[in-house]
């Protein structure tokens, strides 16, 4: 008698719209490396296809600009060819993506990351460009505390506003974590699935480890 075999994997997809001719802060919300879509897994060559010519991707380099932190050199999309370099973008890693064409909907496909998973190392006194490793949305708490990130007093979160700085894009005002009442102040930011954010670690260096389970 054949026994039923159940898979614990949960596969899903997330659509993220990239505004036209603008920078967006994007984070991969699904793991495409196992049970994902195509060979290439979480590499940008798999995640972002059919981009407009001259679209770019930059990561955050905390050691850049003499230790102040800065964006890395760009990886560029060559129309008809593809990205000019490979770049792994595992769930939770944020990148600044410039869409050099009309508004574009990108579909992330893959497994929902479950169980212990190291999202990022958050270095003290440093910024990190990260995102929820699973397709969660809502207040910043959903993308942080509920996913194993333990904020310290005065840690901050900022989003990227593509319309900021006269349309060139800029960081939003920050939500700041206040220890004691353990709240984000003013707590007005919301983060969508697949949306990255800029995290400043004021406390001691820590490892963000999620342990998410689909109920």
């Amino acid at each position: 008698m054949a026994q039923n075999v159940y898979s614990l994997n949960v596969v899903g997809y997330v659509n993220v719209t990239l505004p036209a001719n603008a920078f967006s802060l994007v984070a991969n919300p699904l793991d495409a490396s196992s049970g994902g879509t195509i060979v290439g897994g979480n590499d940008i060559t798999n995640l972002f296809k059919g981009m407009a010519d001259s679209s770019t991707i930059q990561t955050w380099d905390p050691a850049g600009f003499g230790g102040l932190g800065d964006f890395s050199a760009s990886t560029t999309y060559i129309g008809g060819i593809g990205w000019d370099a490979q770049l792994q973008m595992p769930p939770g890693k944020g990148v600044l993506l410039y869409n050099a064409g009309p508004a574009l909907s990108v579909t992330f496909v893959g497994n929902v990351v479950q169980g212990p998973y190291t999202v990022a190392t958050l270095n003290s006194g440093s910024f990190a460009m990260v995102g929820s490793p699973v397709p969660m949305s809502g207040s910043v708490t959903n993308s942080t505390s509920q996913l194993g990130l333990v904020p310290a007093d005065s840690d901050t979160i900022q989003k990227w506003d593509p319309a900021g700085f006269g349309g060139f894009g800029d960081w939003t005002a920050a939500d700041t974590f206040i220890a004691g009442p353990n709240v984000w102040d003013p707590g007005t930011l919301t983060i969508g699935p697949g949306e990255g954010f800029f995290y400043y670690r004021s406390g001691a260096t820590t490892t963000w480890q999620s342990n998410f389970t689909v109920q």
Partner: protein
Amino acid sequence: MKKLLITMAATLVCVGAFAQGKIGFATDGIHLAYFSTDTAKLNTGDSALGGRGLYTVTISSLAGAPSLVADLWAGTSATTLAKVSSAPSWSAVAEGRWTGVNTILPSTPAFPAGTVAFFQVQIHDSRAVDAASAWLQNGWYAGQTTVFQATPGPTAYSSIANVSTAAPFSTWGPGTQQITGMAAGNFGAIEVFATIPEPGTFALAGLGLASLLIFRRRK
């Protein structure tokens, strides 16, 4: 080709924008603004606020209902400071904190990213233009830091309160005044107080006035 040129031009504009120094006018748990613990420096009716942090709750309970603002001053030297940013509001939940402001520093004088600049935080009664002029008025509150140095970033708005040993970014020294009613480790670094004339001052002024009147009558 045309698209590439447009993209390059846009990138240059962005780089130009990013080249201007950026700084976060924000505070943290060890650089809080607080009302002086010396009640002689507080107006009548405000003595209960001594040692408390400034935020919407404490400020709204001040006698006479003045409003207080937090400004960031910056300069390329310690003696050429000018106001570059103002906080739009005070925190509603956290004592001692104003709402942080992303601040792109002016182009004249230039504050290039990566170059150390001089800063000062001033808190003052909104009827005055700065802390010094507020203190010239009897009973108006103000406070300020000493001038400190910080390095504006190229892309991120690093907070002036970032004095992490891992990435020393600002020389603004941490405060030492434990904030009343808050958990240990919350320290005030900006003492806010008013110029309150002592009773003796009033008596002396009255005596002087009386003497003047007597002198004039005899004359």
